[in-house]
C-alpha cells in the first residue's frame, strides 16, 4: 500500500472543516468534504480521510447494515495502513473499532495513536478504558500514570492510578502512591479548611486499599497497625471491622474472638461470623449455646448448633424438636424451607417419622399437612406426599373461607410436591390457580410461567411471561413483550423458553431463545466498559476492582451453560443431518401462538424473530465452537469437551475431536462418556469419504490409547456401545448419533430401573423422540413405574 502524501492547503482546510462538522455531529456536511478530498486525490491517497469516511458512514445509518459495515471495515483498515504514521488516523480507527465493540483491535489502534502522540488526553483516557476492559494491566498502569502526570490535581487521576496498580498487583507502589496522594490532599486540606476533604469516599477507599495491599504482601502485622492509624478516616466501618478481625486471627491475637462476637451483634444472621468465632473458641458448642440463649429469636446460632451435634443424640433430638415445633406453631405455611438442609440425614427423617403426632398438635391443619407432604417428598415417598397434601386440598377452593394468601401458599407448595412426583401438568394447574387468586403477585406468576415451560406448554408460558409487561404498559402486544423480556435481560425466563422449545423439537425457536441468552451474557460482559471511567471517578475503588476481577467469570453461569448446550445441540443436529428436523418442525410450529405473533412481529427490530435464518445459517457449527470455547475458558469440564467433540465430529474435524476426547478424559470424564466419545469419533471417521488417509490412520492409532476399554476399532459399533457406554442417557445418545435405533425403545424400557429421577426419565424420553423411533414400548413401562408422570 502506498504511503500517504501531505495535503495541499485547499485539501488541508477541507479536512479541518470535515473534522469540525464531525465533532458537531453534522455528518452529511462532513461527508461531502471528505468525499471531495478523496475524489481529488485518487492518485495520492489520504488515509485519514478514509478513516473519517468510515466513521461518517457508520454514524449516518441508524443501524448500519452488513454491507455498510463491510465498507467501513475496509475504509478503516485501508486508512490506518496508508497513514500508519498518523496518530489522527489511528485515533479514528480506534474510535471505529470501539463503536463496533471490537475492543482488541481498538486497543491496538489507540496504542498506535498514543505512541505517536502521547499527549492527547482523549486518546489516553480511551486507551485506559480499553486496557482495563481487556485486562491489559501493565498498559493500564502506564496510561493512568501518564494521565496523573498531566492532571496532578485531579482526584480521579490518583484514584484511577491506585486502582490500576492494585489490579496489576504492584502492591508496594499502591502503598507509595496512596501516601503521596494523601500528602497532596494534606496541602488541599490546609488550604481549604473544609472538613469534608478529610471525609471523602475516595480517600477512605484509598486508605482501605492500602491496607489490603499490605495484606496482599502477606504482612498481617503491619496491615493491622496501619488499620488502626486510619480508623478515624474510614467510612466503611463494617469492612474495617471485618478486616481487623481477620488480621487479628492471622497474628494470633486473642481479641479476635471478641471482634467476631461484636460483628455477630451487629448482624446476627451472617453465618461467616459465627464460623470464625467457633474456630477461635475452645468450646464451639458451648459458644453456640450461649449465643442461642442470648438471642432466642435468631435461628442462625440454633441451626449451627444443630449442625454441630450428633443427630442421634438426645441433645440434638430435644433441640431439633423444640425448634421445629416452635416454628410450626407460627403457622407459616413454608416452614419447611428452614429445615430442608437436614434431609440428607436419615436420622432426622426417622426422628420426624417417629414424632408426627406431636407435630400435628403443634399447629393448624394446613401448615401441618404442607410440612408433612414436604417431609415425605424429600424422603422420596412421593405418593405419601401427595396423599398428605391432597388431604387438605379443599382449603384452596373459593368458598373455603381461607384467606387468599394462605390458599396461594398452599398451592405453591402443592405444585412443588407435584413437580417432584413428575406430574408437571398438575403442577402447572396448581400454579395457574394460585396466581389467579393473587393476580398482582409477580412471584406466583413467575413460578407459573416456569411451570408452563417445564410442562412444555409454550403458549400458556409465553402468555404468562408477558402478562405483567403488558399490564404494566411496558409493551402493547406479545411481540413487544418478548423484546422487553430480552431487553430487561430476564435470562431465567428466556432459558426456560429455550428448553421448552427444545423438548417440543421446535429447533428454530429453541435456538433463537438460546441465542437471546447468549447475547445477554455478551451484554453483561461488554457493559462494564463505561465503569472503567465511572468507577475511578466515583472513587469506590474496592468495588470497582471487584468488578474487574469478577468479570473474568461472567460466563461461568448455569444459564449460560444451558444456552451453549442448546445452541450446539441444535446446530449439530441440523448440520450433521441426524434428522430432517426442519421439515418436521414446520408442522409442529403451526401453533396458534406463533401465528398470532407472526402478525405483530416487527422485523425491523429483529430480522429473524423465530430463529429460522439462524437455524439454517451455514456457519452454525463454527458459532457453536465459539460459544463452547467461551464456556470452556471458565468451565473446563468433561461435559464441555464432549460437546466440543460432537461439534468437531459434525464438522469432520477429526483431529480436534480426538483432542477434545483426550481433554475430557484428563478432566475426569467417566468411562461411559469416554466410550461414547470414541464411538462418535469412529463413526465420523467411518462415514467421512474425504478424510485423508494419513489423518484417519493417526486418529485410529490414538483412539484406543484414550478409550482403553474393549476394542473400539475392531468391535462392531453396536456391540461396543451396548457393552461400554454404560450410562443409560449416554447410551441412548450414542445410539441416536450412530443411527443404531432399531429396537431402541424396547431396549430402553428394559433399562428403566436405571433412571432414578424424574428428570432423567424425561431426558431419556426426549432422546427417544429425537431419534425418531416409536416411543410406545418405553412409555408403557415408564407409566407402570411412574404413575403420576405427565410429560408423555
Amino acid at each position, binding site marked *: 500500500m502506498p504511503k500517504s502524501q501531505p495535503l495541499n492547503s485547499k485539501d488541508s482546510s477541507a479536512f479541518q472543516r470535515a473534522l469540525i462538522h464531525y465533532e458537531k455531529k453534522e455528518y452529511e456536511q462532513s461527508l461531502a468534504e471528505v468525499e471531495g478530498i478523496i475524489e481529488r486525490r485518487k492518485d495520492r491517497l489520504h488515509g485519514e480521510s478514509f478513516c473519517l469516511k468510515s466513521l461518517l458512514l457508520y454514524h449516518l445509518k441508524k443501524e448500519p447494515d452488513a454491507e455498510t459495515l463491510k465498507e467501513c471495515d475496509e475504509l478503516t483498515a485501508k486508512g490506518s495502513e496508508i497513514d500508519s504514521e498518523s496518530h489522527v488516523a489511528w485515533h479514528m480507527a480506534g474510535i471505529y473499532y470501539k463503536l463496533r465493540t471490537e475492543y482488541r483491535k481498538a486497543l491496538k489502534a489507540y496504542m498506535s495513536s498514543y505512541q505517536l502522540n502521547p499527549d492527547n488526553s482523549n486518546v489516553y483516557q480511551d486507551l485506559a478504558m480499553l486496557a482495563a476492559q481487556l485486562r491489559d494491566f501493565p498498559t493500564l498502569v502506564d496510561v493512568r500514570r501518564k494521565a496523573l502526570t498531566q492532571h496532578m490535581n485531579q482526584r480521579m487521576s490518583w484514584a484511577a492510578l491506585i486502582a490500576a496498580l492494585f489490579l496489576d498487583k504492584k502492591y508496594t507502589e499502591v502503598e507509595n502512591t496512596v501516601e503521596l496522594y494523601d500528602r497532596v490532599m494534606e496541602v488541599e486540606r490546609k488550604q481549604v479548611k473544609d472538613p469534608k476533604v478529610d471525609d471523602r*469516599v475516595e480517600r477512605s477507599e484509598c486508605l482501605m486499599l492500602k491496607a489490603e495491599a499490605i495484606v496482599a504482601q502477606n504482612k498481617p502485622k503491619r496491615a493491622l497497625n496501619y488499620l488502626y492509624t486510619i480508623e478515624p478516616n474510614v467510612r466503611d466501618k463494617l469492612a474495617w471491622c471485618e478486616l481487623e478481625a481477620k488480621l487479628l486471627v492471622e497474628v494470633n491475637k486473642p481479641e479476635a474472638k471478641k471482634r467476631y462476637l461484636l460483628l455477630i451483634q451487629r*448482624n446476627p444472621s451472617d453465618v461467616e461470623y459465627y464460623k470464625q468465632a467457633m474456630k477461635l473458641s475452645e468450646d464451639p458448642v458451648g459458644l453456640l449455646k450461649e449465643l442461642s440463649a442470648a438471642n432466642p429469636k435468631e435461628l442462625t446460632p440454633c441451626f449451627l448448633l444443630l449442625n454441630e451435634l450428633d443427630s442421634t443424640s438426645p441433645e440434638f433430638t430435644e433441640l431439633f424438636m423444640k425448634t421445629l415445633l416452635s416454628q410450626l406453631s407460627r403457622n407459616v405455611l*413454608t416452614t419447611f*424451607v428452614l429445615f430442608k438442609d437436614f434431609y440428607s440425614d436419615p436420622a432426622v427423617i426417622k426422628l420426624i417419622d417417629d414424632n408426627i403426632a406431636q407435630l400435628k398438635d403443634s399447629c393448624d391443619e394446613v401448615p401441618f399437612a404442607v410440612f408433612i407432604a414436604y417431609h415425605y417428598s424429600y424422603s422420596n415417598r412421593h405418593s405419601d406426599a401427595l396423599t398428605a397434601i391432597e388431604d387438605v386440598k379443599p382449603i384452596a377452593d373459593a368458598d373455603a373461607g381461607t384467606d387468599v394468601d394462605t390458599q396461594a401458599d398452599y398451592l405453591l407448595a402443592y405444585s412443588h410436591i407435584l413437580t417432584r412426583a413428575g406430574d408437571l401438568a398438575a403442577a402447572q394447574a396448581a400454579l395457574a390457580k394460585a396466581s389467579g387468586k393473587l393476580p398482582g403477585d409477580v*412471584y406466583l406468576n413467575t413460578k407459573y410461567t416456569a411451570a408452563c415451560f417445564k410442562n412444555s406448554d409454550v403458549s400458556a408460558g409465553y402468555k404468562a411471561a408477558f402478562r405483567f409487561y403488558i399490564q404494566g404498559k411496558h409493551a402493547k402486544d406479545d411481540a413487544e413483550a418478548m423484546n422487553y423480556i430480552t431487553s430487561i435481560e430476564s435470562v*431465567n425466563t428466556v432459558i426456560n423458553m429455550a428448553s421448552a422449545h427444545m423438548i417440543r423439537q421446535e429447533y428454530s425457536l429453541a435456538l433463537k431463545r438460546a441465542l437471546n441468552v447468549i447475547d445477554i451474557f455478551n451484554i453483561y460482559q461488554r457493559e462494564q466498559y463505561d465503569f472503567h471511567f465511572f468507577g475511578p471517578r466515583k472513587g469506590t475503588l474496592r468495588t470497582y476492582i471487584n468488578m474487574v476481577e469478577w468479570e473474568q467469570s461472567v460466563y461461568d453461569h448455569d444459564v449460560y451453560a444451558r444456552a451453549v448446550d442448546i445452541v450446539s445441540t441444535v446446530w449439530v443436529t441440523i448440520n450433521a443431518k441426524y434428522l430432517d428436523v426442519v421439515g418436521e418442525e414446520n408442522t409442529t410450529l403451526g401453533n396458534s401462538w406463533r401465528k398470532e405473533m407472526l402478525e405483530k412481529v416487527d422485523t425491523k427490530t429483529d430480522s429473524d424473530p423465530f430463529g429460522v435464518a439462524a437455524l439454517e445459517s451455514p456457519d452454525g457449527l463454527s458459532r457453536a465452537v465459539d460459544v463452547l470455547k467461551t464456556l470452556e475458558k471458565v468451565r473446563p469440564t468433561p461435559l464441555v469437551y464432549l460437546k466440543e467433540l460432537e461439534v468437531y465430529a459434525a464438522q469432520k474435524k477429526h483431529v480436534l475431536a480426538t483432542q477434545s476426547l483426550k481433554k475430557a478424559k484428563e478432566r475426569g470424564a467417566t468411562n461411559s462418556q469416554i466410550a461414547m466419545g470414541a464411538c462418535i469419533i469412529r463413526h465420523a471417521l467411518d462415514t467421512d469419504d474425504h478424510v485423508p488417509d494419513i489423518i484417519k490412520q493417526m486418529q485410529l492409532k490414538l483412539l484406543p490409547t484414550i478409550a482403553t476399554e474393549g476394542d473400539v476399532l475392531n468391535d462392531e459399533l453396536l456391540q461396543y456401545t451396548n457393552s461400554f457406554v454404560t450410562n443409560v442417557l449416554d447410551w441412548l445418545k450414542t445410539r441416536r448419533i450412530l443411527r443404531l435405533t432399531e429396537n431402541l425403545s424396547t431396549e430402553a424400557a428394559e433399562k428403566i430401573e436405571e433412571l432414578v429421577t424424574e428428570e432423567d426419565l424425561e431426558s431419556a424420553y426426549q432422546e427417544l423422540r429425537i431419534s425418531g423411533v416409536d416411543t410406545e414400548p418405553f412409555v408403557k413401562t415408564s407409566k407402570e413405574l411412574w404413575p403420576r408422570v405427565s410429560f408423555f
Partner: protein
Amino acid sequence: MIDIRPAQVADLQSIQQANIANLPENYVFKFILYHNISWPQGSFVATNSDNQIVGYVLGKMEDDEAENGKDNRLSAHITSIAVNREYRRQGLARRLLQQSLKSLRENYRAEAVSLHVRESNQAAFKLYRDGLGFEVKELTKSYYADGEDAYSMVKTLTD
C-alpha cells in the same frame, strides 16, 4: 441455613433475576452495576444453603438536591427490596433493611431514608410502618407505569 450479608459484585446478576421474579419494576444489569459501584455499602442479600439469593435490598443515596427534599437532609432511598415467596414471613426483609439502613447511615451519613410502595401492597406497607417505623409522607398519584398510586414513606435515621 439463611445467611444475610453485604452484596458483592458477584451477586448482582442473581439480584437482577430475583428482582425480575418478584416485582414488576425491573432494571437492566448495567443499572444494578451502576447502583452498586455508586453506593456499594447500601445493598444486602439473603442466601440459602445452596447459595441461591432468596432476598435482597438495594439501598442508595439520593444524589440530587431536589430529591433530598426541602429540609435538605442527606437522604437515603430504598430502590428495591424483595424476598422469594417461600422465604417470606421469616423476618428476612426486616433484617435486610436494618443492615442496609445502618450501613447507609455509617457510610454516607444519611439522616433520613425514603421509599415508595404501591398502595395495594399491604405486606410491604406493614413491614415499613409496623416493622421499621416508617411514616407516610404523601400519596403520589399514578406513580407506577400501570397507573397505581404510591405511598411515599420516610424514616429519620439516627446513630
